[in-house]
């Protein structure tokens, strides 16, 4: 399953993981339900294949350790997204420190499609390439919002994962939506 369906959020929440067995069971469930979502988070945050594998392992290990203190106050999905996004953010911050590359907010980002190139039809692979390029330019928090939005979480769920107010998530999503539509349809507004 991808994203957090309203049913998942309102589902009977798992009890605090007090035993190792229970933590193992939660970990297996998290992997089965959110494995592809974690892989997409990793892919969007690291282009290098080897570093991507390292980051994915880091997230799995951290997730497994985190279930020792999972108290069920939020849904399993929210927990998994938080751990995965936070480790990805730490990874991006660390890499940015090494590469001295400046990242920007959604408000500052350059339009993904060159207006002179608007008439050109893009295929799906090119669109995904542009989308990854766009995401790669964003600061960690804005990057998370776009990724969660692409994973079909709604504003309230994104607010729960990120800790941002609903209204601010709404503003960010409005901007992200404009960029995404433009990316898919080109400059034909």
């Amino acid at each position, binding site marked *: 399953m991808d994203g957090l369906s309203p049913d998942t959020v309102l589902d009977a929440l798992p009890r605090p993981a007090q035993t190792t067995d229970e933590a*193992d069971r939660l970990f297996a469930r998290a992997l089965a339900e959110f494995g592809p979502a974690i892989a997409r988070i990793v892919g969007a945050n690291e282009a290098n294949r080897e570093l991507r594998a390292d980051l994915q392992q880091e997230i799995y290990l951290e997730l497994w350790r985190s279930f020792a203190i999972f108290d069920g106050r939020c849904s399993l999905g929210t927990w998994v997204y938080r751990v995965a996004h936070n480790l990805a953010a*730490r990874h991006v911050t660390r890499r940015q420190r090494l590469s001295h590359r400046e990242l920007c907010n959604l408000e500052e980002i350059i339009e993904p499609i060159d207006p002179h190139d608007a008439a050109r039809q893009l295929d799906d692979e090119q669109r995904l390439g542009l989308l990854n390029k766009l995401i790669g330019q964003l600061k960690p*928090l804005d990057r998370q919002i776009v990724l969660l939005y692409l994973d079909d979480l709604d504003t309230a769920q994104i607010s729960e994962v990120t800790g941002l107010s609903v209204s601010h998530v709404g503003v960010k999503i409005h901007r992200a939506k404009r960029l995404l539509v433009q990316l898919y349809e080109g400059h034909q507004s």
Partner: protein
Amino acid sequence: MTERNDDPIKALWRAQSTEVPAMSVSYVRHRSGELHRAFRIRNWLEQGAGVLGFAGCLVVILMAPHPWVKAAAALILIGGAYSGWQWHRRTASFRTDPSKSSEASLSFYKHELERKRDIHRTLWRWYLLPIAPGVIAMLSWNFFGDPQTRGTSAPWGVLGMLVVWLVVSLIYERSKAAQCQREIDALSALAEPES
């Protein structure tokens, strides 16, 4: 602007092929143990490099002809040990606390930025200051010591370079700390309760 549909791009995003490695719980347990071993090895390597630096100071302490130089090298050695320990402690990048990792992203990211800001803001105090007495003692020898055994014939040049380096470093660290603070302020504004 009319509301346009972005479902196709979401669908495209979710349909992309992803590599999801099969990972059993027992394998994760095993890797967790390996990771701790990797940290231990990295620490040993860092400590080994530190030992080499200290060895250099020890050679000066043992071989230098004048007690003043010996004392200066000893001060650099002690200050360097303290700075190295502080650096290691404050910049340890992968000592993840599960409770931190499960914080909402905003508080987690702010926490990381605050950590980074504090490193930039206080670096002079815990990294530069401890080695200052040793460096000053070594420089003093080059100014006032026996002309036959001085390390350099151009102490003013060395002092000038040190001062320039120090000033540039401090300005750089302050600007980086201010940059972090601006981002923290912007994030704090984002999280303010809605009116």
